[in-house]
């Protein structure tokens, strides 16, 4: 399983959230700025178109030259002008005009203005002085609303500023409400092979005018804004991630404290509780639940441990009586009689029973961590050679190999160690093959005495291997069931080894053999 870091996840989550928000915000604001710029440009183009509708047939050159300045474009290359007369004949085309720009489509989309020269008030007027520094009018509608909807004096905002055409100079009939002062304009974005143009077109009664402004300027401006975003977004993201990393640490700090408290509790034993202390309010419930769990665990653990202890103890007295009485009767009946044989068998069974209770009691003590050890210095080598001597009697049919280092001394409980060794050797004999072998090794490795007992045996299945130390577990095969045993010996032996600070392990599976490794610390020698 791959381990996942909560802290890393929090940081990642914050970073992703932050980046999505930032990128979204950037895109939207970039688009809004772009739109605003294009709108402003549109407004200026329209303004210029409308100004251009005033008759100025001779001065198209000048007008075209003044356009870039008016439109706030740096460089003439970005502005182009095309003027046709009303029949479509070319009147003027600036050098920047590219033929791919399809102004005709725009003109076609416009309604034709009435060709009424009389009504054209500006016909005789000279072109207006290019009042170039005036701010262009804003928010001009695409098509001018019908006049009657507005009172005449509210108009000036959408027109060239009033001071350019002082009302006194204007003939009064020009303000007639039915006279369309402004012609409809049409705007579109067009793409040529070199540039993107914003093209505006208008019909005046005499001319068709189109102004094309390259969007390169806007694109340059937008590029610098994009650069600002591109630089600032990663920086902000790093800040967000760093902040999330720091914040997540402070989130995890109480959990770390709780872990320490819980660890102390488990070291000290089940009867301890995690103190509430100055815990944050969010963790109080967790501690409470954990303490409750500990309490339940302790109760059931104690119950189980006490049960087997109590049961074993309560069984001991009746067993002692039973055993003593049978033993006495054994000596009273006629020697070698059937009754004596029966009593002898009964005695064996009682003995087995007391052996089980004794082991259960020891196991319950081990579970409760109260296995009292009477540590004395023991010569393991001598103990093993004594056992080896027995092995000749016990299993003369086995091929026994011994490799016992001399003078292996450890501090341990002699009686219990004898029990462990007898159990391991006893198993090695009991579960051996008819003409098998047995290998007994003992050596000292890094302040530990390692005793290895290997014997030929039937193979133990993997499931069986896992359960071999379980209490009351005995092999499934009928052959094993025939062998006497309670299934407690090995698990008790391991508990004894563990109580000494050692362990018993099953050797890695090798076909045809079984091995147990007992390791015990040498212990402090006086």
């Amino acid at each position: 399983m791959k381990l996942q870091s909560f802290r890393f996840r929090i940081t990642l989550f914050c970073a992703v959230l932050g980046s999505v928000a930032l990128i979204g915000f950037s895109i939207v604001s970039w688009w809004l700025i772009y739109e605003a710029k294009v709108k402003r440009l549109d407004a200026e183009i329209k303004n210029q178109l409308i100004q251009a509708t005033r008759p100025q047939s001779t001065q198209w050159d000048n007008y075209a030259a003044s356009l870039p300045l008016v439109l706030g474009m740096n460089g003439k290359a970005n502005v182009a002008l095309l003027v046709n007369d009303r029949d479509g004949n070319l009147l003027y085309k600036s050098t920047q005009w590219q033929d791919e720009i399809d102004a005709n489509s725009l003109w076609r989309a416009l309604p034709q203005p009435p060709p009424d020269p009389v009504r054209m008030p500006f016909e005789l007027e000279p072109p207006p002085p290019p009042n170039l520094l005036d701010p262009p009018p804003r928010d001009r509608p695409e098509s001018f609303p019908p006049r009657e909807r507005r009172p005449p004096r509210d108009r000036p905002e959408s027109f060239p500023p009033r001071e350019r055409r002082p009302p006194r100079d204007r003939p009064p009939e020009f303000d007639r409400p039915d006279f369309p002062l402004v012609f409809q304009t049409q705007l579109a974005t067009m793409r040529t092979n070199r540039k993107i143009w914003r093209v505006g077109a208008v019909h005046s009664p005499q001319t068709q005018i189109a102004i094309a402004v390259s969007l390169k300027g806007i694109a340059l401006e937008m590029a610098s804004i994009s650069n600002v975003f591109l630089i600032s977004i990663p920086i902000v993201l790093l800040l967000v991630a760093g902040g999330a990393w720091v914040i997540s640490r402070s989130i995890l700090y109480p959990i770390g404290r709780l872990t320490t408290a819980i660890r102390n509790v488990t070291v000290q034993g089940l009867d301890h509780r995690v103190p509430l202390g100055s815990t944050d309010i969010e963790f109080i419930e967790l501690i409470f639940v954990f303490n409750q769990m500990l309490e339940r665990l302790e109760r059931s653990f104690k119950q189980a441990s006490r049960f087997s202890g109590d049961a074993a103890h309560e069984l001991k007295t009746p067993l002692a009586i039973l055993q003593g009485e049978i033993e006495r009767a054994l000596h009273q009946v006629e020697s070698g009689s059937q009754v004596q044989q029966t009593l002898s068998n009964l005695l064996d069974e009682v003995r087995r029973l007391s052996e089980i209770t004794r082991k259960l009691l020891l196991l319950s003590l081990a579970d409760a961590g109260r296995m009292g050890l009477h540590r004395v210095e023991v010569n393991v080598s001598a103990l093993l050679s004594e056992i080896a001597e027995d092995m000749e009697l016990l299993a003369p049919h086995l091929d026994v190999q011994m490799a016992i280092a001399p003078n292996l001394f450890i501090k341990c409980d002699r009686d219990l160690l004898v029990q462990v060794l007898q159990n391991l050797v006893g198993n090695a004999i009991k579960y051996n093959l008819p003409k098998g072998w047995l290998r007994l090794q003992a050596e000292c490795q890094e302040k530990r005495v390692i005793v290895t007992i290997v014997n030929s045996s039937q193979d133990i299945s993997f499931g069986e291997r896992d359960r071999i130390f379980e209490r009351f577990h005995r092999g499934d095969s009928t052959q094993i069931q025939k062998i006497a045993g309670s299934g407690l010996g090995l698990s008790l032996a391991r508990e004894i080894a563990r109580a000494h600070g050692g362990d018993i392990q099953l050797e890695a599976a090798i076909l045809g053999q079984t091995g147990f490794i007992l390791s015990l610390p040498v212990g402090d020698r006086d």
Partner: protein
Amino acid sequence: MNVLYVEDEAKIANFVCIGLKEQGFIVDYCANGNDGYERAMDNQYDAIVLDIVLPGKDGLSILKLLRKAGRNVPVILLTARNELDDRIQGLHLGADDYLAKPFFVEELIARIHAVVRRASGGGQNILSVGPVKLDRILREVTCDRHTVELTTREFNLLEYLMRSPGRVLTRTQILEHIWGYDFNPNTNVVDVCIQRIRKKIEPIGGVGWVESVRGVGYRFRKPDSTS
């Protein structure tokens, strides 16, 4: 041999007393810790057998007080409760041996003999039944002036049998006495060991002294019953 036996469980006390008396002990029995302590202080015993759980003073307290008063009488503790802790405490307080319940009376007798012998400084080094003599120091067996050596196990087994001649000891009893708790009850180690002993003592005149009791175990022949 004088033995004080303090035990509150009457049924256990009953058969233990009978068993000890059968083996020639003079048993002074009481069921109360306070009485037991007074008797132990007032009389001279060869050995004291103390149960740990007692009304009044418990076994460990009696032991402690005795040792405090400078009494070095051998003490065997009988434990039932927490075998390991009691054993540690008992041995720490100066008990000579301990025996966990349930136990064989025969085993208790063997232990009493052992602690008494140890306390008396090896006064009874020779155990002699019929023509067979055991030397506990040299671990030799002598019969008609011939001597053979026995292994530790063989010697212990023969001694166990010879201590109560005529009494049958079951295989389990022998196994537990010689080898301890947990040794393969389903092996014929006792039989093998007995055969070896016989092989060693028969050539020197010990023929027929180690008897088999069919289906039960073994016994050492009582000298009276033969000649």
